[in-house]
Structure formats: structure tokens, C-alpha cells
């Protein structure tokens, strides 16, 4: 985008009524932002030390119509993907079952804002079993022995 956008004084601000209206809008738009949203942004700094590829949520079974949801013990299945990597997860009461694709041996760690919550090995087929599931929101950091680190989005407990 054009990075030379200049926030020059709006000519309308010379008009008292319009300046008051602009000020009202400016103050209100800052108040609109929930404080939890700002706090979550501040907490993101804790992830600074992790040099990882971000894998974003591409599938969430909770968003599917109820009729086609599985009846099994799987509470929810999620898929995260980045360029070239996919992490498929099944959240069960006892464990987080996952598969990294393409497969690769490595380590997976669940991390919350407070630090590491659980860790497990990733086998040669890319499978891992992480349990018991964390009780606070977390993200998974998958580190493969080939040197790639993949960080998923937030996962609800």
C-alpha cells in the first residue's frame, strides 16, 4: 500500500462544530476497543523468542452443522496450516492427538501465556499424543529434527 499517507490536518477541523464531532469520534473509537483485546495483544510479546512458522486455523469441527459431527469421543477436531505444513488435531478428554504433515520426527510443546504446559515426542509418521490436555488456552510448538518450528494458533482447553 502507499506508505506515504499523510495524516494532514483535516481542513474541516478549522470549523468548530466539525472539530468537536471529529474529537467525539476519535475518543469513542478508542473506547470501543475491549480491554481484553488490548491485553491479549500485550501478552503476544511473550512469543517473541519463538522463531516459528505460524500455522493458521483452516478447519474447526465446532463450526460444522451439528448433524454431521462425529459421535465418537473426539470433542473437536482442528486443522492448522502454514506454507507447506499441516497440523491436524483431535481434542479428546484424555489427550490431544495430532499429526504433522509432512511427517517428521521431533518434539511438540503446548505453551500458554505463562510458559510450557506439556510436551511429547512426534514419531516418524508425524503422530503425537499430548496428555492430559492443558486446562488453559494454549498453542502448540512443533519442532522437527530437520530444524523447522511450527506454531499453531490458540486452542481452547
Amino acid at each position: 500500500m502507499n506508505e506515504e499517507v499523510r495524516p494532514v490536518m483535516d481542513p474541516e477541523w478549522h470549523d468548530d462544530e466539525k472539530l468537536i464531532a471529529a474529537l467525539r469520534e476519535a475518543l469513542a473509537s478508542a473506547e470501543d476497543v475491549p480491554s481484553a483485546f488490548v491485553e491479549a495483544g500485550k501478552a503476544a510479546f511473550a512469543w517473541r523468542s519463538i522463531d516459528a512458522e505460524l500455522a493458521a486455523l483452516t478447519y474447526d469441527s465446532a463450526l460444522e452443522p451439528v448433524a454431521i459431527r462425529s459421535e465418537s469421543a473426539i470433542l473437536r477436531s482442528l486443522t492448522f496450516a502454514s506454507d507447506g505444513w499441516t497440523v491436524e488435531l483431535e481434542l479428546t478428554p484424555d489427550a490431544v492427538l495430532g499429526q504433522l504433515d509432512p511427517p517428521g520426527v521431533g518434539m511438540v510443546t503446548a505453551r500458554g501465556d505463562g510458559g510450557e504446559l506439556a510436551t511429547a515426542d512426534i514419531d516418524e509418521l508425524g503422530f503425537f499424543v499430548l496428555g492430559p490436555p492443558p486446562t488453559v488456552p494454549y498453542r502448540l510448538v512443533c519442532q522437527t529434527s530437520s530444524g523447522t518450528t511450527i506454531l499453531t494458533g490458540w486452542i481452547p482447553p
Partner: protein
Amino acid sequence: MRDDPTVVDLVIRARDGEKNAWDELVERYAPLVYSVCRRYRLTQPDIDDVGQSVWLRLVEHLPGLREPAALPGWIATTTQRECFRLIRATSRVEPVDLLQSPDIPEQAIAEEEVLRHERGAILRTAFSELSRKCQQLLSLLMQDPPAPYDEISRRLSLPVGSIGPNRARCLTRLRQTPALALLAADGPGPNDE
């Protein structure tokens, strides 16, 4: 855009690991992320999701950010991209209309939001630089509908007849605050004539 010395300083300090500087950056730009998300009518949980991705990408992007002045634009376009990603991932229909036939080009939306955000931030800074008396008076006048003069008179112990002149004086001071005066000086110059 002026190279805002505050933003440059915050970016450098956050890059060096100073948490306070990061917090200030987030406070400063959270309204921008939020307003772009609102523009795409995302729900609160989706806005939270987009926010997380944007801040993480920013944490990652800080070391490579050569021109801190470009930060607002980067934040707006990154937020847009995350909004599209989420809309694609969660909607059952392909958001073809959204992506391929926008009435307003995406870049124009980002620029508009950046400009609105920068103007808003400047007005908020300017307002915070006013005397308490002026802040109180303007706050009452900004209410919708504005507080009646007799109520303002009672609450601020000002004669009704002096409210009008005080209002004009406070607005003049607002225009003269460093935040706004800088803009006026920075406005269309002789080269633009």
C-alpha cells in the same frame, strides 16, 4: 507520513526486548486492528483471533522493520489479510464476492483506516494535552445530545455567558497543541501549490 519519533523509538525499544514499549505499541494500534476487523463485520471471537495473529506477526516482523513510519500501513494490510484468511476458513461458501469484486479496492480500505486511525490518535493526544478545565468543558459539549448550558454552568461553575467564548478558546488551544500544530505546519506546502 511524518516519521513519528515516538513510533520509531517504541519500535526500536520493543525490538530490543523492552516490554513497556511493546505494550505502548499495542495500545496505540489496537484501535486500528479493531476498526479494520469491524469493517469486515467479524464477530468478537473472530476479532480476537485476528488480533492474535496480527500481534504475533508484528512480534516476528519487528526486527525486519526498516521504516517504522510504514508500521500503520503494515498493520492495516496484515489485519485485512488475516480477516480474509479467517472468513475463508470459517465460511461454508467461498467468499468470492468479498475477494474478487470489492466495490472499494482493498488497498483503499486499508489507507482509509490508517488515515482515520492516525487522525484519531493525533486528536486523542491533542485532547490529553489540554487543561483539565478544557477537557471537562469539551467532554460535556461532546455528549450526544450536548449538555445544556445551564447544566454545564452548574457543573463547571462557569457563568452561562462565558461558555461560548470558553468553548472557542479551548478549541483554539486544541488546534495549537503540539500534536495538531505540527500537522498544520506539515500540511500542503509551497510545493503543492
